[in-house]
Every structure is written in structure tokens, then in C-alpha cells.
């Protein structure tokens, strides 16, 4: 890392609009392209504070600020366009969280980096609608929250209840949601409303280590811990009535279920294994990066291809995982209301992944190019008429699901043409942390947080009490700031605001 004073660092940053900053070349060594990040005045302060802290003399045991990480990614071989920081950006492993970067597949130097996907491969959000309204749910809210908590295994050490053996797992890894469909856990139309139709075709379970499979098997169909959750939400605001209508959302007060989870220990192990492999590949191919954490391999090398195939298997795992929890949520609602999930109209509105790398076609400098797009803490947001979005959303643009945090709102946005040009069709993914976990534990009180949630009318079921402080709304950036910045910058458009009434967490 280049050591400079904070004031000198600022010379490399330029505010180009009220919502957008440019990171000039030279901010970090060897930058191939410029960086850019989207923030409003509130988020800008958090971003620059992180940088200022890192510039303090005598910093030890510290970590790179997000803005430096965006610039380090801009120095990776084969990157095109810009290294993009979304409004919820914060420091992560190698890549910042809330960072997207695209690499030219036809450039032999181009790389793929597991750090650009993250440990939780295909962590994502799924939204189910119902035909219930808030007044239908309020009288039974506690029972329903408890029932969801009883149905969905949550927290560290919990095991899945969907029966699985090693052979089932192999098939699920290869088939993704086609497996869930074959086994009768989902409806055929669920697949339609899912990125990649819930199955990455290049998945190859034979490239996945035994270790990852062993970790994955007991955890399939579990929510996990940390920021993962299942929430019962109600529609609080509709910004785009027409688009909301296309998603089956008619009025304020309509009840939805949001599931935020990923590929569990399976994906974590796939990422860990790949990082070890890639360290060797980097030495062999003389790939230089600014940071050891940016371990990567050429896209066309054996390590690069093996990673993409095993990452795809992990992505399939995550879709099967969210599908299993969709099944369990439908069961919980069906039992509570003594109605079939069908009659409750519990359709999947959409399912997005916010930790993934995908091969996509984009226009760069007026020419079509095939790119490997890394999105880490960033959601795909394709505009209307894009061929990869389902027919139901051809005219509205892809629904983008932005999960808030315990007790805060969540949003549904839609993709825009402007976002396609500026950020390769990518937008934010959630709130993004503002306080460290340890700081949250020290500064917040367990009972205060719970009382506040109760006051807001939110039922909560959480496996780990410590998590209540770590995941308190105060620990995160304000999701409304994040979403408004995306809307104002034009990289996606606000459609629906959802407010939680019950939260189930690890």
C-alpha cells in the first residue's frame, strides 16, 4: 500500500456528480482502469472516514479501506470499463463488499478471482408474495413467526431436515432447481423467476472437493447465521404501480416473505479450496496483484476453469437451499392458515444472487464484448427488453431485491438502461455494515435492541442472542440511503418498499 497523507489521497478522488466519485489512476499502483463509487452525502462521509482512519500514522493490524480495495481491483489484469463501488460498499476480503468488476473473456491475460465472488457463493435474496394482507396476519403473527422458526433450521450447528444422501447432493449440485422441481419441493414457475432459471449449466460436481461436499451435505436447507434471515414483510410503499402490478403486488399492506441465504459451508469450502489452488497458479503464471487477498487465476487456466465449474455447483447448491426454505415457508403458512400454498398465491416474485461471477454480453466502447462479470455484494439489475430476464418482466426490467437488516425496510428495485451502461447492469445488495461486530456488542444492549423491535411491532426469533446486537439496525448503513443513491444515480429504479413484521435469524 502506498503511504500518503489523507489530504494527498484526496487528490486522487474527484466528485463528478452529487452521487458519484471518480478514483483516478495512481491512487494505487498499476491501475489499468479508473475506479468509481456511488455515494450520497451521508454514505460519502462513512467512505472517507474509513480512508482517513487507514491513513492515521502508526496503524497496525489494520485493514484496507474499501476505496483502496476498489482501486486494487482496477489493477487486475484484463479488467474493462471501471472497477465499480456500489453505495453499500465497505471493506471486504480482497475485493470490497459492494464491488463489481468485469474482465474480457477473450483477453488471455484476464483473470477470475474467488475474492471477487466472496466466501458465500450465490448468497442471495428471494421474495415470495402472498394474497394475505397485514390484518390477516397480525392476529397470528407470533404463532406464524414461531412456526417459521420451527420449520426452518437456523443458526450455527443446525442441520437440514430435507432428506439427502451423497448421491442426492451430487445431483442437486449439477441440476440446481431442476433437482428441487424433480423432487417436488418447488413449483415449475419458481424457476422462471430466478436468475439463470436456478441452474448454472457449467456446474461440474467432480471439480468440487470431498471436503466441500461433506460440509455441504448436512447443511442443505438451513438458513445459516450472521446476516441471513427469513422475514415476513408487508408492502409499505409502492413507487411504481405498474411494475409492482407485474410482480403481483397490488396494494399497500400485502404480505410477502423474504429469504436471505447462500450456499452455506459448501460454498465457503469451495472458495477456500480455490484460494489455495490459485496461490500456486499465480506464482506459476507470474500474476502480480497489489494484495495477497486478490488471489486469482487466468480465466482459461485449469485453476480458473475448475473454479468457475465448482463455483457454478455452489451456486446451484444455494438455489436448492433457498428452494428448500421456500418449501418450508409455504408449509408453515399453509398449516397456519389451513390453506394450500397455491391458494395463498405464494409465488416467487424473484430470486437474485449478490455474490457471483457470470459470463455476460455487454457493450464496451460501442462494441459487443463477452465479459466475466464479478459481483460481490452487488446485484444484477438488467434493463427492460434484456434477453436474459423472464418474459413477465420484459417490460419492467429485472426485479432487484435489496434486503435490509433486522428491523429495517427492504426494497424491490428494477433494472435500468442507464445502469446497463454505467455499471454493467449492477446495483447495490443491501445495507452494508457501518459498525464492526465487536463494536456493536460493546455499544448496544441486548434488551434495548429487542425492546426497540417490539416497539416497532416486529416479532423476532433468533437462535443466538449475541447476534441481536451485531445485527442491530444501528450496526448497518441506512438501507434507504443506499437505495436512494442507486435511484438518484439512475443505476436502478425504486419500485416497492417492504417493512418487516417478523424476523427469523440464526
Amino acid at each position: 500500500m502506498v503511504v500518503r497523507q489523507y489530504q494527498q489521497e484526496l487528490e486522487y478522488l474527484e466528485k463528478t456528480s452529487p452521487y458519484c466519485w471518480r478514483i483516478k489512476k495512481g491512487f494505487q499502483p498499476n491501475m489499468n482502469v479508473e475506479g468509481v463509487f456511488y455515494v450520497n452525502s451521508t454514505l460519502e462521509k462513512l467512505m472517507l472516514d474509513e480512508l482517513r482512519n487507514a491513513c492515521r500514522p502508526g496503524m497496525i493490524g489494520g485493514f484496507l479501506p474499501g476505496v483502496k480495495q476498489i482501486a486494487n481491483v482496477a489493477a487486475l489484469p484484463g479488467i474493462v470499463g471501471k472497477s465499480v463501488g456500489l453505495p453499500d460498499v465497505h471493506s471486504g476480503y480482497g475485493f470490497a463488499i459492494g464491488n463489481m468488476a468485469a474482465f474480457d473473456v477473450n483477453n488471455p491475460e484476464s483473470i477470475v478471482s474467488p475474492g471477487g465472488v466472496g466466501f458465500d457463493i450465490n448468497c442471495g435474496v428471494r421474495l415470495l408474495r402472498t394474497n394475505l394482507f397485514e390484518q390477516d396476519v397480525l392476529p397470528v403473527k407470533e404463532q406464524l413467526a414461531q412456526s417459521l422458526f420451527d420449520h426452518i433450521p437456523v443458526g450455527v450447528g443446525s442441520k437440514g431436515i430435507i432428506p439427502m444422501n451423497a448421491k442426492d447432493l451430487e445431483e442437486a449440485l449439477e441440476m440446481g432447481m431442476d433437482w428441487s422441481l424433480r423432487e417436488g419441493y418447488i413449483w415449475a414457475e419458481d424457476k422462471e423467476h430466478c436468475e439463470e432459471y436456478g441452474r448454472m449449466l457449467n456446474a461440474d460436481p467432480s471439480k468440487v472437493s470431498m471436503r466441500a461436499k461433506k460440509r455441504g451435505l448436512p447443511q442443505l436447507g438451513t438458513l445459516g447465521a450472521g446476516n441471513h434471515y427469513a422475514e415476513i414483510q408487508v408492502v409499505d410503499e409502492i413507487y411504481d404501480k405498474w411494475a409492482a402490478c407485474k410482480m403481483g403486488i397490488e396494494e399497500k399492506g400485502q404480505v410477502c416473505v423474504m429469504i436471505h441465504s447462500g450456499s452455506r459451508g459448501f460454498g465457503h469450502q469451495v472458495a477456500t479450496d480455490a484460494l489455495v489452488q490459485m496461490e500456486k497458479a499465480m506464482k506459476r503464471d507470474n500474476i502480480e496483484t497489489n494484495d495477497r487477498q486478490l488471489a486469482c487465476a487466468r480465466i482459461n487456466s485449469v485453476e480458473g476453469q475448475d473454479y468457475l465449474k465448482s463455483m457454478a455447483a455452489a451456486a446451484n447448491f444455494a438455489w436448492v437451499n433457498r428452494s428448500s426454505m421456500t418449501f418450508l415457508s409455504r408449509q408453515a403458512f399453509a398449516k397456519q392458515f389451513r390453506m394450500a400454498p397455491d391458494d395463498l398465491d405464494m409465488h416467487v416474485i424473484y430470486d437474485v444472487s449478490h455474490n457471483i461471477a457470470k459470463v455476460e454480453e455487454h457493450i464496451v466502447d460501442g462494441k459487443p464484448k463477452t465479459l466475466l462479470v464479478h459481483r460481490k455484494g452487488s446485484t444484477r439489475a438488467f434493463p427492460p427488453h434484456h434477453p436474459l430476464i423472464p418474459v413477465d418482466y420484459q417490460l419492467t426490467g429485472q426485479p432487484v431485491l435489496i434486503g435490509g437488516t433486522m428491523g429495517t425496510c427492504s426494497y424491490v428495485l428494477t433494472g435500468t438502461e442507464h445502469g446497463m451502461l454505467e455499471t454493467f447492469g449492477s446495483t447495490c445488495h443491501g445495507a452494508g455494515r457501518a459498525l464492526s461486530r465487536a463494536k456493536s456488542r460493546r455499544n448496544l444492549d441486548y434488551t434495548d435492541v429487542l425492546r426497540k423491535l417490539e416497539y416497532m411491532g416486529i416479532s423476532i426469533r433468533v437462535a443466538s442472542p449475541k447476534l441481536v446486537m451485531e445485527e442491530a439496525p444501528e450496526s448497518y448503513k441506512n438501507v434507504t440511503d443506499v437505495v436512494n443513491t442507486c435511484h438518484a444515480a439512475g443505476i436502478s429504479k425504486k419500485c416497492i418498499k417492504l417493512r418487516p413484521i417478523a424476523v427469523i435469524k440464526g
Partner: protein
Amino acid sequence: MAEEFTKEELTLPPCKYEYLDHTADVQLHAWGDSLKEAFEQCGIAMFGYMTELDTVEIKHCSEIEANGHDIESLLFHFLDELLFLFSCEPFLICSKLTITEFKAEGEEMRIKCKCYGEEFTLGKHPQGTEVKAITYSAMQIVNKPEQSRADVFVIIDI
């Protein structure tokens, strides 16, 4: 799993670790009179983030082996093995680690470790935070044998 343990094996070591600030994750800081002890403490620190260790009884012992090509990768693989022990059969949560072989020099480094604990059981063990992965991020290993002091810093992804 009814195994016999000696009194020495059932005695827990003193706590020589702490959890430090990091935005998204947590940094483990463990120390000891020797590098070996700091490694053992670091492993316990990780388990301590998953549950309350005073609820863990010693009923079972598993042995693991980890290899590395440098000291950082040795620590990385050691912790990764421990995480693996927890994540699938035997789902072991440990309150005590005893490194029986510690070769931290040369090209091929190796650790053998006895891991004491029991199967993680919901209801008995409070659920703490899930550890997703071990990282090399800001990993620091400071060994000062002349002062009989070693410190390790590891960020775990949670």
C-alpha cells in the same frame, strides 16, 4: 463416545485470546509462551465464537493433521481442519486442543493435534456465530522465543 480421559486431559488451559474489531468480520488475537501455545489458543478462540465454551464437556477426542509450506499457511490449514471437524461428522466443538507434533520450520511444516470436546448439540450448546472461513487477511504471526512470547492475529469470515 464413552471414552476415558486422564485428569490432565480434562484440565482446561487458561484463556489467552481476545476478539478484536473488524468491520464485517472478527479478528482473533491469541498468544502464549510459545508459538505452539498461541496456535492452540487461536483454535480455541475460534470455537469460543461458535458457542459458550463453559457448556462444552470433554467426552470425545479427535486427532487432526495440518500441513503448510510457510507458517501462515500452516496456521490457515490448522484452523481450516478444526472448522471442518465442527462442520461435519463428528460435529466436534472443542474446549481444549493439545498440539502433539509441531514442526514449524523448513519446507514442509506439520501440526498434529488432539482435539477434546463433544458433538455440538442444539439445546445444550448456545448458538454463537457461524464461522464461514479462515482468511489470510491481515494475518500476523509474531514469535519472540527469547521473550517466551508469541502472538497470532487471524481474521475469520463470519
